[in-house]
């Protein structure tokens, strides 16, 4: 049994413009201790999916379909108090921005020890000791002295460390990190990612890491799901996806990975923008931006299939599946691109530099 099993999750928002389907029949699993990446541009439904796992979506949003099982228990049929006992305890989340989690009127130490005491039966003094230890674990210098500081006295990177300490305070089985470094600058980003990775190993915590940067996924994760317009378009072990991407959108994302030393704010290399989720294109949602789109792509929505056999994805974690009509034999011209990987050993998975070349 996987730690987390998500089946056909559908999340919708009712707005004056119409129904926004932010997650559309999404299925995936996260195994115990695994690092699972979710990648896609902003607006792909990644955050909504993550927040749904912890039942943090409210009206006008609604989980309209699907199942979420955590350690075999159905999260969606739990009572509010059952969910609260899991949230922040067995399943914890690091939000995009530390401000979402930190309360400006309490000291950082109080916030960490409060999290400890909320779920674990610790005395005040023990909770304080545990909080100081956690602050030390996440690399906050002089944790004893800084216990009584308020969040505004911390830099953005240090605030995010406090959030990580809070998230790890109850030794969760699953840590969901939603773009944990978006608000930070590049040098801090690398440190925070290292920290999450090392702590996850140390605490034997599974991580679901959400990012728009495939390079980050490649460094941290074992498996990856690429999302586009509320749907998974490719799922694979990270090396398979990185060295042999099968979906044109993934190939496009790879071309957005910066080379070492390159300015981070690079140009968007996939032309066009993510479609409005209230008005999805017919057929393959990616067709207006896909360099290989054919007439069939406007008429058929590609299912997620094994790229070799064309069989429907069966949930096997080693499977490499993609949602493109190429793999169901519906394209006339087919895909034509080449991925050049340089300076990397495929076995280490530590490559950070990629080149790409694809053309129709």
């Amino acid at each position, binding site marked *: 049994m996987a730690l987390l099993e998500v089946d056909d999750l559908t999340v*919708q*928002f*009712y*707005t*004056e*413009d*119409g*129904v*926004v389907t*932010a997650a559309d029949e999404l299925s995936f699993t996260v195994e115990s201790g695994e690092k699972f990446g979710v990648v896609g541009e*902003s*607006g792909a*439904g990644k*955050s*909504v999916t993550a*927040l749904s796992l912890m*039942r*943090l*979506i*409210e*009206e*006008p*949003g609604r989980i309209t379909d699907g199942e979420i099982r955590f350690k075999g228990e159905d999260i969606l049929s739990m009572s509010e108090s059952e969910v*609260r006992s899991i*949230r*922040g*305890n067995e399943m*914890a*989340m690091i*939000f*995009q*921005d530390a401000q*979402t*989690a*930190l*309360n400006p009127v309490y000291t950082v130490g109080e*916030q960490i020890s*409060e*999290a400890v005491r*909320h*779920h674990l039966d610790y005395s005040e003094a023990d909770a304080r000791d545990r909080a100081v230890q956690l602050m030390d674990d996440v690399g906050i210098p002089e944790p004893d002295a800084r216990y009584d500081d308020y969040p505004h006295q911390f830099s953005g990177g240090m605030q995010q460390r406090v959030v990580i300490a*809070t*998230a790890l*305070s109850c030794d969760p089985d699953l840590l969901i990190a939603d773009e944990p470094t978006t608000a930070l600058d590049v040098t801090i980003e690398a440190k925070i990612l290292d920290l999450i990775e090392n702590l996850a190993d140390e605490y034997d915590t599974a991580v679901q890491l959400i990012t728009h940067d495939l390079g980050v996924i490649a460094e941290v994760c074992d498996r990856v799901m690429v999302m586009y317009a509320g749907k998974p378009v490719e799922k694979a072990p990270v090396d398979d996806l990185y060295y042999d991407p099968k979906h044109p959108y993934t190939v496009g994302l790879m071309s957005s990975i910066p080379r070492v030393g390159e300015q981070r704010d690079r140009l968007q290399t996939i032309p066009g923008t993510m479609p409005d*989720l209230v*008005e999805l*294109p*017919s*057929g393959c949602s990616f067709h207006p931006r896909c360099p290989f789109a054919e007439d069939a792509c*406007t*008429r*058929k*929505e590609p*299912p997620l299939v094994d790229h070799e056999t064309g069989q429907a994805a069966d949930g096997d974690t080693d499977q490499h599946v993609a949602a493109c009509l190429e793999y169901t034999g519906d394209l006339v011209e087919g895909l034509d691109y080449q991925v050049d990987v340089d300076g990397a050993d495929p076995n280490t998975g530590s490559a950070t530099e990629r080149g790409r070349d694809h053309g129709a």
Partner: protein
Amino acid sequence: MRRIYESDALYRDDDEPGAPRERQREERPQSFRSVPSGSLSRWLVPDRVRRWGLSLEVVTPRTEFRVGEHVPFQVTIKNSLPFPVTVATRSPLLWTWHVDDHRAASKLSADGPPEEERGFRFERGERKRFRKRWDGMFKIADAEWERATTGEYTIGAGLNVEGAADRGLYSETTVTLRPE
């Protein structure tokens, strides 16, 4: 949902470590401004008056398009009364659109949002405008679409209330698709 963290659709609780903290009350984004059911004005204003005050219009920038071209249209819903009104809709959708008789250009039997009354508020004199497009396709199966052929098509839009057409809360326009 681009701004989930800024929206009201995120559960927040200052007393629960692990949940997002509450934020200061801000103006709710326009698109979320619906309430679970009607509000005060529903009771003070007779139904008739409330509906006379509202009007809906659908327009396209031109009447002829080529097959394969997208057909943009704009829906305007206006409250011409000098006071705010709340309209109760049949489901969480304020309005629906159709091509010929096919809701949202889908030939599948409607699988819309739950039948649950919802109240949408209009300020006095408020005009809500929505831009949409019909991409010239009809949905014919779960994962399949067909292209509309040449000919005339009616694009209609109506407020999501019982008997919208009889109450003047439905409007339509005709477009012609010409050969490519």
